């Protein structure tokens, strides 16, 4: 019974019926074995053998950090040129393969723009914590590029996105209602990540990074399961993590929506041939609008007013609700967790098997002090919960509002928020390409009626 409270035994919790299936498909045991190997105790030698000192690797040299930054800038600049000028999907693909190998497998998924969001947040809320210039640059540079030319970072620099991109086999189209509903989650995740980082609780983006375990060939069991699940789903639902989870993607989306320059499907004037219509595996192509149908009605106007009025209401209700849920949210903080555990079950203070309790007991700190500290943390969550809830309310309201705003569109064009600038659609456009393969080499396969 006591072992249930042990925080460091996640493996058994996942020994369920899915275990076998998942093991058939990927390299999970390696990761588990790897983690077990690290905690394997030294033999109890009873001889004169001197156990050598544990060697610790030196921190990464500053030069190498700047090399990372240089490569990020180079990759983003090159991709920008490939997207806007060269218009070559093939070269974007090869650049992305390089990034996967370098930022993913060589750099083990770290340094990472996605996770840097948390470092930056913690440095803002904790005076004792600071971030290096490289971390700051990794956070800011992709956003600046998104603001200028769209999400080129997602296309060819983010190893998390690229590994999903490469496993796309037969993407299926998702209904807009499903996409938009699931599209709320990255914003909620973003808010939670900021709250947890600001309170010094945890870096949840890193903790639940599904792919870093694959890059490092080592992670906790549930994370490997999560990573494999995303890749399996990603064979048919393209880039599921990027579209429905990634919190940094939410920021990039906002920036990209306001980008000055952006990928265009057609290099000149769109001839509305519709060939690109189904080319995007991410359903990020907006179609020409039907003038007659999309004419705003009086009903639409009142809906707009209603949703606009709903913004402050939802922000308040969201703030109130999430602030009230501080007990649940704060329980992820190790001090709050331990204090709750020991107050609810004081007999566990005698438990010598629980590492957390053992550590606390040997620290000399009293339960009273621990509880006081936990209460302070809970207050932070209660306060921060108002901002998080208001943010969630705002996101819901704006998503609703966006559905009653009609924009005229006469051509097929990439949705600036959702488009990853991967360039697939460009290959489908026959404009300016007399040698277009679908017309020239395989005329019989162009149209399947």
């Amino acid at each position, binding site marked *: 019974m006591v072992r249930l409270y042990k925080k460091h035994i996640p493996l058994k919790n996942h020994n369920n019926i899915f275990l076998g299936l998942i*093991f058939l498909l990927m390299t999970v045991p390696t990761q588990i074995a790897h983690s077990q190997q690290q905690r394997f105790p030294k033999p109890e030698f009873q001889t004169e053998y001197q156990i050598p000192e544990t060697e610790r690797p030196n921190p990464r040299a500053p030069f190498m950090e700047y090399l990372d930054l240089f490569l990020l800038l180079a990759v983003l600049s090159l991709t920008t040129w490939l997207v806007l000028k060269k218009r070559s999907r093939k070269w974007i693909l090869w650049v992305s393969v390089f990034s996967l190998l370098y930022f993913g497998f060589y750099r083990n998924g770290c340094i990472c723009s996605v996770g840097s969001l948390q470092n930056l947040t913690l440095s803002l809320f904790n005076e004792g914590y600071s971030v290096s210039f490289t971390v700051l640059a990794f956070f800011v540079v992709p956003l600046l590029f998104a603001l200028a030319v769209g999400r080129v970072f997602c296309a060819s620099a983010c190893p998390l996105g690229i590994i999903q991109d490469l496993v796309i086999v037969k993407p299926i189209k998702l209904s807009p209602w499903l996409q938009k509903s699931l599209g709320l989650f990255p914003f909620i995740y973003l808010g939670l990540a900021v709250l947890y980082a600001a309170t010094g609780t945890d870096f949840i983006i890193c903790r639940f990074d599904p792919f870093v375990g694959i890059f490092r060939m080592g992670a906790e069991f549930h994370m490997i399961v999560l990573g494999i699940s995303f890749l399996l789903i990603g064979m048919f639902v393209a880039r599921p993590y990027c579209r429905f989870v990634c919190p940094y993607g939410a920021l990039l989306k906002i920036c990209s929506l306001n980008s000055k320059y952006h990928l265009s499907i057609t290099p000149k004037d769109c001839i509305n041939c519709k060939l690109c219509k189904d080319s995007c595996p991410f359903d990020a192509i907006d179609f020409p609008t039907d003038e007659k149908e999309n004419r705003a009605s009086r009903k639409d106007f009142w809906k707009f007013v209603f949703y606009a009025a709903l913004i402050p209401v939802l922000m308040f209700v969201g703030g109130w609700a999430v602030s009230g849920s501080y007990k649940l949210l704060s329980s992820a903080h190790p001090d709050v967790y331990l204090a709750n555990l020991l107050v609810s079950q004081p007999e566990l203070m005698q438990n010598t098997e629980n590492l957390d309790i053992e550590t606390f007991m040997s620290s000399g700190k009293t339960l009273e002090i621990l509880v006081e500290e936990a209460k302070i943390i809970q207050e932070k969550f209660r306060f921060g919960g108002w901002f998080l809830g208001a943010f969630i309310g705002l996101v*819901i309201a704006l998503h609703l509002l966006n559905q009653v705003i009609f924009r005229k569109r006469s051509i097929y064009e990439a949705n600036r928020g959702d488009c990853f600038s991967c360039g697939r659609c460009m290959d489908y456009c026959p404009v300016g390409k007399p040698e277009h393969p679908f017309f020239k080499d395989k005329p019989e396969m162009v149209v399947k009626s």
Partner: protein
Amino acid sequence: MLNLDFEQQMNETEKIKRARQIAIIAGVFTAFVGVLLLLNYLQIKKSDPLNSLVLEKLVERLSSEPNNQHFVEEIRQVDLLMRKAYFTSLWQVRTGAYLMLFGAIVLVLSLRVYYSLRFAIDQPSADQIKEKKKRQLTQRWIGFSGALVIILAIMSAFFTMNHLKNYEPKKMLVHSKSDDESIEKVEIVSIRTTEKETDTVIITESTDVEVKQPEVAITQQPKVVVFNEETVKKNHNAFRGSWGNAVSSSTNLPTSWDGATGKNILWKTELPIHGYNSPVIWNEKLFLSSANTSKRVVYCYDRNSGKLLWEREVNNIQGSPATQPKTTEDTGLAAPTLTVDGEKAFAIFGNGDIIAFDLNGNRVWAINLGVPDNHYGHSSSLLTWEKKLFIQYDTHKGSKVMALSTETGKTIWETVRTNEVSWASPILAKIDGKFQLIMLANPNLSGYDITTGKQLWSVDCMSGEVGPSPVYGGGLVYATNEYARMVAVNPKTGEKVWEDNYYLPEVSSPAYHNGYIYIATTFAVVACFEATTGKLLWEFEAKNSFYSSPMIAEGKVWVFDTGGKAYIFESGGESKLISSPELGEKVFSTPVFADGRVYIRGIKHLFCIGVN
């Protein structure tokens, strides 16, 4: 032209076929490797050497027979085999994982080729669902999703229990006391009925107990235990009794017993793990420790019944070494005796672990002092006074004395010493109305201020590997060591009063009583000296050598030889052996006295001796 088209068509068909075949082969291969990995993983889990029952049993058997080299060799062999098997499995898993990764990459690539070859652009068609209807549906689902998030947040707000909100330290105090209700009852009853001399152990209502809860206060009155000179004198809270001065205030002690027939043996209990330390007592509880290479344990017994009240394994201490330091068989890892301050019991082990438990077995704090570099093993016992825990930490890599806070384990002061490694224990002596911490090592006998840790005096008077602890009495400090000398030093002046080297103990420490010094040597001699002059007054040849130290109780000198035979002398300038009862078990520890009873730790059992 037609033929060319046909050939091209055939090539495409052939490629699709090949891609499909490769995908199937890669899929089967990946699945097959996956099954093997799964089986290997289960095998690793099953044969986890960290939780090997075989190894555990072998270690248990070794602890009962620590000198059995066959067990040692067997454990090494089994351990090596298990490690080899474990790491081989890891290698297999890693290799298999790379094979599987390769298979998965081929599978994904072949599937991509397969689908891309079969790909054709569908004829663009008009959307079946109108844009407005799509938007309406989307609004509905966004609304549902948003509502779901907010409802979940509200539900968590109402249904999540916040234990901290109702936390009251006072209630927790009462609650934690109630965990050991039966033990407390025994303690209160026995104090009032049998322990006449413990009047000063004040039992009062704690101010922490809430007046609104009379039912709790009546049944479980928390006690305030006064830790002062009077209570320390009436308990046996350290190695060689109060302040380590080898004197007990107990009376009505039995002078005859027989371990073989059970005469006057009130109870005896088997000790699960061996240790050389002596028991200590506070009121009705008796504490001792044991250790082997796999675990270190503190035990608490009811000294009236011999019932084990609690045992606590000493582990999970930051900085504690994974590999235990090498010690000799006659020292081990649990040679130092514990000490008690009336509220907490403190134990130190040969690996540098030091731990505090409250008297109910709740761990209060624990630290590691760093593994002592000591070729026999650390054996210096603990002492406590004025909320400080004193540790003599003389090692090859430097010597020091330190005082830790009994409340938190944090260092209050620490003083570097210039002597060599030693095995002696500190004592406390009241000199000019103030307690001093006195320690012996090679080459000096020194006194320290217990408040600041400042060295007050030091006399270079000793040599060799110092095992016996000093003793204070009659205004002088007495120190001795085999192959060196016995000296009497005036701690006020640092003057050496006398010196002799006729009889010298190796392990056993001297005792002082009414102007006489008593020693027990490894050569099986008990000797008495005049304390003021060092003149040998009498000597007695015993059956076996002495490791146990002589104690003074009820005007008598009590000492056990290593064969388990006790020698009880009348204290004085003439040799008067009162009795020499046999325990029937080897003894290396020093006896403890309380309430007309003698407690002694044998090599395997703990004995309580009293009048039946």
